């Protein structure tokens, strides 16, 4: 029962702040609303018995990604948005389209069901999920883990190639 209450609290906050993200007038506000949403998602992860994911969510998203966003907002977008329309005119079509998408998706989710009821990891194992996830990651998922490291590398190199080198060129000019 408590779980349900918490779920609804987290969900409602998450949805409201998500709507605020896309409707806030200024990008800074959007960023802060997004942080709230991400925190709620972390809370949802805890409800799903995976504190490890919640920790990762907070560290990476809130700690790293959002800082990056805020930085970008501050550097690139100082109050400019107020001058122009912040909502795109195609909202007339876009919003109904998204609503239709939601209705169809919800219908399918409620009608849907899964095929297997395998009990690979019992409740007890899930309680120690950090440990199990760690084992999985360096066991079965070793290969994609290594690939993800390459993805991070490419992001690093890409950012350097586009931003840092661009400034060097600017200086030369």
């Amino acid at each position, binding site marked *: 029962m408590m779980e349900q209450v918490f779920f609804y609290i987290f969900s409602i906050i998450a949805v409201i702040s998500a709507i605020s993200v896309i409707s806030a007038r200024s990008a800074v506000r959007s960023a802060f609303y997004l942080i709230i949403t991400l925190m709620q998602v972390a809370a949802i992860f805890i409800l799903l018995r995976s504190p490890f994911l919640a920790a990762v969510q907070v560290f990476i998203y809130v700690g790293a990604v959002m800082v990056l966003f805020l930085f970008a907002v501050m550097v690139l977008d100082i109050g400019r948005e107020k001058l122009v329309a912040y909502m795109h005119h195609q909202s007339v079509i876009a919003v109904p389209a998204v609503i239709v*998408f939601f209705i169809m998706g919800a219908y*399918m989710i409620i009608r849907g069901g899964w095929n297997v009821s395998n009990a690979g990891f019992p409740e007890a194992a899930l309680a120690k999920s950090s440990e199990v996830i760690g084992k999985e990651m360096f066991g079965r998922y070793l290969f994609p883990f290594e690939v993800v490291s390459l993805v991070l590398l490419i992001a690093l190199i890409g950012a350097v190639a586009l931003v840092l080198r661009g400034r060097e060129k600017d200086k030369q000019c």
Partner: protein
Amino acid sequence: MIQLVWLIPLLPLIGSVINGLFGKRMGKTAVGLVACVAMVASFLISLSIFIKILSLPVAERSVEVTVFNWITSGAFKLDVTFLIDPLSTIMILIVTGVGSLIHIYSIGYMHHDKSFWRFFCYLNLFVFFMLMLVLGANYLVMFLGWEGVGLCSYLLIGFWYEKKSASDAGKKAFVVNRVGDFGFILGLFLLFWSLAGHGITSLSYKEVFANIHHLDPSMLTIITLLLFVGATGKSAQIPLYVWLPDAMEGPTPVSALIHAATMVTAGVYMIARNNLLFSLAPYTGEVVAVVGILTAFFAATMGLVQNDIKKVLAYSTVSQLGYMFTAVGVGAYTAGVFHLMTHAFFKGLMFLGSGSVIHAMGGEQDMRKMGGLHGHMKTTSWTFIIGAIAIAGMPPFSGFWSKDEILWETFEKGHHYIWALGLLTAFLTAFYMFRQVFMTFTGRCRADHHTQHHLHESPKIMTVPLIILAVLAATGGIIGIPFFEEGTAAHHFLNSVFSSGQHVVNHAVAGGGHVANAAGESEAIHGGLELIMMGVSVAVGLFGIFLAALLYYEPMKKFAPSFWTPENLAARFKGLHTLLYNKYYVDEIYDALIINPIKRLCWYCWRFDLGVIDGIVNGAGWVTRLVAWLMHKFDVYIVDGTINSSATFVSWTSSFWRRLQSGYLQNYALVFVIGLLLIIGGALLGW
């Protein structure tokens, strides 16, 4: 030796590639050398294959050489396979032999052209495709060649593309040939479709011919008629002959090689190759024969009044092609192919001769400005006269034997009207050819002083091919002289190819109550009646020459009655003359009946576009504008925006309607999402 057949088309292709890629840097001598060496080598191989074929027993003279398996897909196979049999051997001999001579001649003729290398590149490429056409052992290879020669013809007609008339003529040829090719493709598709219904998915002649009896005659008639439509396009028959006279805008060697000796005979070859199909569809045969003889006749009448030296030859080509179609239409395939060969000799010769004349006249093509050239250019003149005698059908020159054979076969097979029209055409042919000879070579020179001063015989490189062709035109008829045992040499040689078709025809004729005359029995029938026929056609030809001489040959003019002068005749038969001079107004009729309606249709379509489509777009725009206005109010009162949205909104909608690719990222995303919605919605409704 026969296994080396792939070299025959390959050598010209190599020549073409070398000239096309390096030609610009190689210098004219090297370019000419490469092209000619490729051709001559190819000719020598052809010759040795011919000799080899002769040495084989008759039953083994059809050899298929598979160069490689091109596409294998399950049971379906496409090979590049060459078929060596008497028919294709004769064709490759003509193509490479006459082709070599014309190549050599071109070195002289095109010497001053800045695009010398381009010319030889195209010319060699053309020969390659032509050889593919005649050597292919299946319809695919033939079709490849068929389209390829069309392309090269287009490129070569428009060779001097700076000249508007030349590029227009190229376009005309292209369009008219597309019409024909459409029929041809349709015919081929229909053939495969209907054969596939019987489980035969092969494209090779052998398979198709072996299984052709599965098809019912009405289907075969449709197929053969469609194939014949293709032939009328390529071989310039009624109603698609209009491109050939215009094609004379190309360089003269091109006219000689493509528009006289080789490509235009592709239609005849195609029908001869498919003789079995056409024999099984007697109705198509009738159509072919009638179209052929009508073409022969009308083209000849048009040739009577032309003043352009090449146009006369062009109409004469159309007319002679008509003869060939008449022959293959009535089932006299050997006669048709025989005439094809002799025609290649004498018409090639005459075109090259006219080229030599034009060369000497500094580009002048109007015969009214020529005259008396015999004194200046003896070799050209004599060889040209030999060609004219040959085409006029005077014994013992080649044209006599082949034309006479066609006439005799039509007569003998009971097509008396066709025979009569053919005879009349023979008379007209003799007349206009000698009109041309007399106007060009005899009498007083009517050219301006400057041109007269520069009159000269062409260089050796041009006259030697003329002489060789003249010899061939004079003696090429030997293989068709009908007084040997077992028929003519040509019959004897080609019999194996046509025997199946011939058999069907004879069978049908026998069934119809007529006397069957197999080719093998020709000895008996080449008797008295044929001699009489020969006499008649010679007499008709001589009469034609005589009338031409009375009109145009100075020493003879004094014997002519007073009304018998070109001017008087033109005045007396003014209507007819105008009609002929304007080529029966066929181009104008086509314009009025086909081209203009199409143009008008396009215009209507465009109007429709403007009226209806724009209406829809505007309507949609109006609706969106309304929505925009409402949104605007919503914005102003509820969102409290400072947005001047309607203008941008309309501009967004218009670009949305006009183009999906608006350049706006979020439109793309929206289209993306709508696409996703459609997929999911479709899935929910159950695809």
